[in-house]
């Protein structure tokens, strides 16, 4: 029987939960056809159990690398794994915890622990790495299953292929499409964004659930984001925030959408504004640009303020 281990780094364990979203019969089949040798979220697994394992057919790693402990675990995982999978957006691109890379480590620690950290470090808190990184920064990754969490259909399909031994060539396991391709909203002829509407703002109720978010002034990352999620957020009247990572043919997801929005923003009115006025308006309209455009991918594109080797 093929052996599987599921473990993680800086993760919320949402990816573990996603595995449990598999339909009952599939979950049953999965457990009957493979041997799960390590899955600390669901089983009474200890790290020693993992260390004792020899070769493992499939290791699914979720979460990015925040601490020395994560890093060591990942390296072991790579050594043992026939196939190593980056499960979810954090393992693939760094994910939301990666936004912390905007700040220096010292500042982060001070913010969380106050002056206590030096006393605690080494004993009860694992040594943090300078910056959070996706797992591909340390080891070679065979497959990426992006998403926050990855769509259950994708996980199911991947496991089917794994069990049958019919996996495609290494790389991103997902759809070669964008979220826009899966979205049914109507796109108007002429798009111009005069005002950016934020989720939950007071005029949020005016948003037409049948019309493209972007055309209504809501920043939606659907066009720059890989499909496969069946536009699940958009169908719940919530704009795409880009968890599936860059769409095929796109190098930089955030820069792309930024460039599109910069082109559409105040298309008509900007002619009558000075550079300073435009700058002020943009600053007012786009609150937290990094969090908006690089919510899931910051470490993938940018190591941090003191990054030298990228």
């Amino acid at each position, binding site marked *: 029987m093929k052996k599987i281990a599921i473990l993680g780094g800086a993760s919320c364990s949402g990816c573990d939960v996603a595995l449990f979203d598999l339909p009952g019969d599939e979950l049953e089949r999965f457990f009957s056809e493979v041997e799960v040798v390590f899955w600390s979220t669901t089983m009474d697994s200890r790290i020693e159990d993992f260390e004792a394992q020899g070769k493992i057919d499939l290791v699914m790693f979720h979460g990015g690398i925040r601490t020395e402990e994560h890093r060591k675990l990942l390296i072991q995982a790579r050594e043992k794994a026939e196939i190593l999978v980056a499960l979810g957006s954090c393992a693939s691109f760094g994910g939301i915890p990666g936004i912390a890379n905007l700040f220096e480590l010292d500042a982060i620690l001070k913010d969380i622990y106050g002056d206590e950290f030096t006393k605690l470090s080494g004993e009860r808190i694992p040594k943090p790495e300078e910056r959070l990184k996706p797992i591909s920064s340390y080891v070679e990754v065979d497959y990426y299953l992006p998403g926050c969490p990855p769509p259950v259909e994708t996980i199911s399909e991947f496991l089917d292929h794994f069990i049958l031994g019919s996996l495609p060539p290494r790389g991103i396991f997902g759809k070669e499409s964008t979220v826009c391709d899966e979205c049914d909203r109507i796109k108007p002829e002429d*798009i111009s964004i005069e005002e950016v509407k934020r989720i939950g703002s007071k005029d949020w109720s005016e948003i037409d659930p049948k019309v493209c978010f972007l055309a209504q002034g809501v920043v939606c990352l659907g066009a720059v984001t890989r499909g496969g999620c069946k536009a699940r957020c958009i169908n719940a009247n919530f704009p795409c925030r880009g968890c599936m990572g860059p769409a095929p*043919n796109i190098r930089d997801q955030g820069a792309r959408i930024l460039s*599109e929005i910069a082109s559409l923003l105040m298309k008509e009115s900007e002619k009558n504004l000075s550079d300073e006025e435009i700058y002020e308006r943009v600053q007012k309209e786009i609150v937290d640009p990094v969090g908006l455009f690089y919510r899931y991918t910051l470490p993938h594109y940018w190591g941090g303020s003191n990054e030298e080797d990228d």
Partner: protein
Amino acid sequence: MRIGVFVCHCGRNISSTVDVSRVVREVSERSRKVVFSTDYKYLCSDPGQKLIEEKIKEENLDAVVIAACSPSMHEETFRRVLKRAGINEYLLEIANIREQCSWVHEDGTEKAIALTLAAVEKVSRNEKLKPIKIGVKRKCLVIGGGIAGITASLDLANSGFEVILVEKSPTIGGKMAQLSETFPTLDCSQCILTPLMVSLSRNDRIKLYTMSEVVEIDGYVGNFRVKIKKKPRYVIEEKCTVCGECEKVCPVIVPNEFDRGLSYRKAIYIPFPQAVPSSYVIDPNSCLGLNPVVCGKCKEVCEADAIDYHMREETIEEEVGAIIVATGYELFPKDRIGEYGYGTYEDVIDALEFERILSSTGPTGGTVKRPSDGRTPKRVVFIQCAGSRDENYLEYCSKICCMYTAKQAMLYKHLVPEGEAYVFYIDVRTAGKGYEEFFRRVQEEEGVIYIRGKVSRVYREGENLIVEGVDTLTGKKLTIEADLVVLSTGVVPPEGTENLVSVLKIQQDQSGFLKEAHPKLKPTETLTKGIFICGAIQGPKDITETVSQAKGAASAVMELLSMGEVERDPIVARVNEEYCVACKTCESLCPFGAVKVRDKAEVNEALCEGCGICAASCPTGAIEVVNNKFDQFEEVLEVLINGREKLETENSGLPL
């Protein structure tokens, strides 16, 4: 791909701050893509071009990088060289190591190497392309019916092309129709102009729209679609016999703008007897009869039944292959120069008003009378550079004022031989054939007194005006008692130029005149292909120059239209349908209306200018400009940052 690099010295323009031989050596060393590199003193010269052609053949090159001046100078030249050598002319890149390097750096060698290597990277990913050919409409739109527009229209029509002439006012003729006599030959202005106006009106190839303005233009060189708004004349041109009965019975009297308000006209009027089209016109702002209950006198007496109070504004659409803008000039609004008292004193007038007074068909019937009391002025003071060459008003020289002042002074002396004429001047500029001789005659034979200096103040004392000024040659303060003061006002672009510029998508210079494509070599072209300019709208100029330039513009249009088709650069946007999500961002942003989204985005290559706005805004990277693709720029940036091409062993980042 075998890439050759040619580095130009441009005499010493480049080689004085760039070590050309080092550039030649290091581009070969740092890039394995370069199979040949050399330099030459002037690559654009004939032997320079021959050298490139020979080396392409000898070295079996299939792509070329020229490190020289800006591509706007010689890209075309070098493309032709590639074509002659038998390779695709779009496998050429220019590294601008002159304007962007040698001219702005003390030692530009390292930057020149980087720029050249970047061009090597770019050209190595260029596609072979063919120019796009588009048919042209053999018809030209001329905007403005002054002497410039008339000349251009006649030249084009006489060469067999159709012309649409659009004029804002009720008649063609422009400023020249208002002038008395022209310098330096003293030809009667109307006498030489009106025959041209008549032959224009009789020409079947010219369609004339008066009281009309161009309100919308789209399309591109060879295929412009033009929307013209024609205001109602309320008199049917074809029916009007110019009998003048209507004018006699019209009860409304208003100032006559053709005489610059120095005479009066009725609400139904003809601007001047030789107006073209030869027809009366009703001024809707003063006419009472547009509401026939109030007044309908003219309609009652019109035997030809030419009057139609219900005429409406029309919108006319035309398709043309080229456009000439000849909207002329206006005089600087002299009431802005408060110290000269214009607007305060009736006897301070501007040059065009004096033209009307001097004209035999003018308000005074060819005798010189001053506006206030109709007396013949015995002493006239001319003030030159009224507005021009003055940092408070117009910084530039209006060019025509010196000569028209000299002419007016001479004409005054002819009409009032016992009168005195004084001219205040800063410099007298008489560059032009026969101009200096004319000026000498005015001074020596006619006895006009020229005073070098500026006038500080004009004020009234009794019935006369006191002109205070300084003779800067003697340093003495001068006070002249004058009957009439004539301001030689400067020349400005006409009202509405800004609007026209935005309709046509052409540019203005800092003074507001229209900007030519190149001040020396392309004075009648604009940066928008297919749109030409001539006459005073390009900058102040006299009739001689205006006519020459109008003929130049007409001939440039003929060159364009007679080819039957135009070639366009194939540097246009292209859609990769696989990635297009039909978000319509490109369609919303394209300034040329070249992209339409149906199932996927589609580019009309004839409309696309290759500006790249669509590529920059496309969220999925599905639309890109040919030979300006993202991967090309990524490599170019790599080279510019690192100063060498990227090695294949270097990883570009994460394996995504």
